[in-house]
């Protein structure tokens, strides 16, 4: 048949954020029914090559559009440029390609997605609001070197500055619950006077909450990011203060719609098409 084919390049589908994003995209494809969706993820977060391979494979398969959430904002520039040169409509979502890298390659591509830095700042602000100036806080970072981890760290640092918080420690737990649990319980030993924690994703926030429970501390505020289902009860009963929802469910679907519009002859996308982010709290 001659339905347009859309290749969706995701990050690690083992990550439930991207999993629900994919589910959303698939539901959307079924609903619209006027395009064919091929989705590819990667084995793990740092397997940049898998994404490049996926783009190469899509070019080979001759898809009409590629919708991509880059795992590395710089590594993907050249392969995507190749795709554009092959006449494929490319939409970049979730994480923006690096501006300098794009310039250097003489390549322009619009970005559809949320503001990770802004989102992290929303969570940080919630913390600052609650704790007040001078409060002692720590952050559990994502994978060092990952773009969204960097953005979220920067966003949180913005809040730290804004609310004049005292940042006691900043460590990675590689997005993982168990590691976050271990790292945070140890941080808590080193700094018993912590008042607030930002976890760069909710999986790590769960580990932090469990560490607080184990230590019998209920005086420390926790904020996370992503709004996965597992944290809903924690926000409800106050074990977590807030998390940030980027509406991942719709994000890929929206990006696909934009790609299909361009395919159908619509205007080229430009700049940053920001998508919604929202702070989720108990009320």
């Amino acid at each position: 048949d001659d339905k347009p084919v859309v290749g969706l390049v995701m990050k690690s589908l083992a990550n439930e954020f991207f999993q629900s994003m994919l589910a959303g995209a698939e539901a959307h494809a079924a609903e619209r029914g006027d395009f064919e969706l091929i989705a590819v993820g990667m084995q793990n977060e740092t397997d940049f090559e898998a994404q490049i391979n996926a783009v190469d494979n899509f070019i080979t398969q001759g898809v009409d559009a590629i919708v991509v959430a880059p795992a590395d904002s710089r590594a993907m520039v050249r392969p995507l440029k190749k795709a554009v040169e092959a006449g494929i409509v490319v939409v970049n979502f979730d994480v923006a390609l690096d501006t300098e890298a794009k310039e250097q390659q003489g390549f322009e591509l619009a970005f559809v997605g949320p503001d990770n830095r802004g989102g992290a700042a929303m969570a940080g602000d919630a913390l600052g609001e609650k704790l007040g100036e001078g409060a002692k806080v720590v952050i559990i970072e994502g994978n060092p070197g990952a773009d969204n981890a960097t953005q979220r760290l920067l966003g949180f640092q913005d809040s730290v500055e804004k609310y004049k918080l005292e940042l006691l420690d900043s460590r990675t737990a590689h997005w993982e619950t168990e590691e976050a649990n271990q790292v945070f319980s140890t941080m808590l030993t080193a700094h018993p006077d912590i008042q607030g924690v930002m976890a760069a994703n909710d999986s790590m926030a769960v580990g932090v909450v469990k560490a607080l429970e184990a230590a019998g501390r209920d005086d420390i505020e926790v904020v996370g990011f992503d709004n996965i289902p597992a944290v809903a009860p924690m926000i409800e009963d106050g074990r977590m203060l807030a998390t940030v929802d980027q509406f991942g469910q719709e994000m890929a679907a929206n990006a696909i719609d934009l790609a299909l519009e361009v395919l159908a002859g619509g205007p080229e996308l430009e700049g940053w098409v920001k998508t919604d982010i929202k702070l989720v709290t108990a009320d």
Partner: protein
Amino acid sequence: MSSAHEANIAARGKSFSLKAILNNAGIGLALLLVIAFFSVTTEHFLSSNNITNILTQITINLILAVGMTFVILIGGIDLSVGSVMAFAAVVAGKAITLPGLGVTELILLACLAGVLAGLVCGILNGVLSAYWSLPSFIITLGMLNIARGAALQISGAQTIYSFPFVFEEFGSKLIYGVPVVFLLALLLVLIAWFVLNRTVFGRLIYGIGNNEEAVRLAGHPVFWYKVAAFTICGLTAGIAAIVYMARLSIASPIAGIGFELNAIAAVIIGGTSLSGGRGSVIGTLLGAFIIGVLANGLILIGLSDFMRQMITGVVIIIAVILDHYRARLSAS
């Protein structure tokens, strides 16, 4: 090779406690040095809270490492334990969130399901590698992928959560500051020690690692012993999954990535030979402690993440070098 002596002792099944510990003294020494170092450099290291933390933190690795000891003793390796743990956790998580059952039934069912899931993976590992005499490295690498894929598939890549309260409580319960889950791990160490040193089965596990052909020529069903070793390893992965769930109140399909390397490291740092036949589960206990104490202490002294990673590597290497000299000294 570095640990011939203590292994001999272990193989001979000398008295537990003192002698075994003395013979693991190289690694014990390294452990003491690390502990002494952190005790003086950091304020909180020896606080009872922190000791509780450390014990909690090494529990899962220790449980996995106990099973791994059996596999390494027969000269095999099991790369799948991290994935199998995730698989077992997801299975148990599905079970424990079933609607319409009482809390006790749910917990029993979940434990059973999780342990069984681990067991089945272990049996598969064992049968596939022993029946065709295939390198367990590659069979369990296959299983690593299969179990992880299955865990993701079954759970739809979603974290399973909201478990019964008593179950979660078990994960953080303390007895005189010692986590119950750590006591469970310690119990497994003791059982493993007993099995390895006091039973015919255990001696033949050492025997197979030493000279499989000789054990076969002596008329023993080597195949089944090998399957048993992998099954035990699967079993401990299942138990680790239950502990993981109780501790973190979630069952995540992406849990346990890379845990296999930590478990293997604990076993080898503990002086068990990767080529099989030599080693002891007491060594494994010490090995797990070294890894856990390092992870904890390096955060306490406030090293940056990257320095911490580098120093972890350096200390691991120094620990085995120390163990080498201990082995040489005690040999002469």
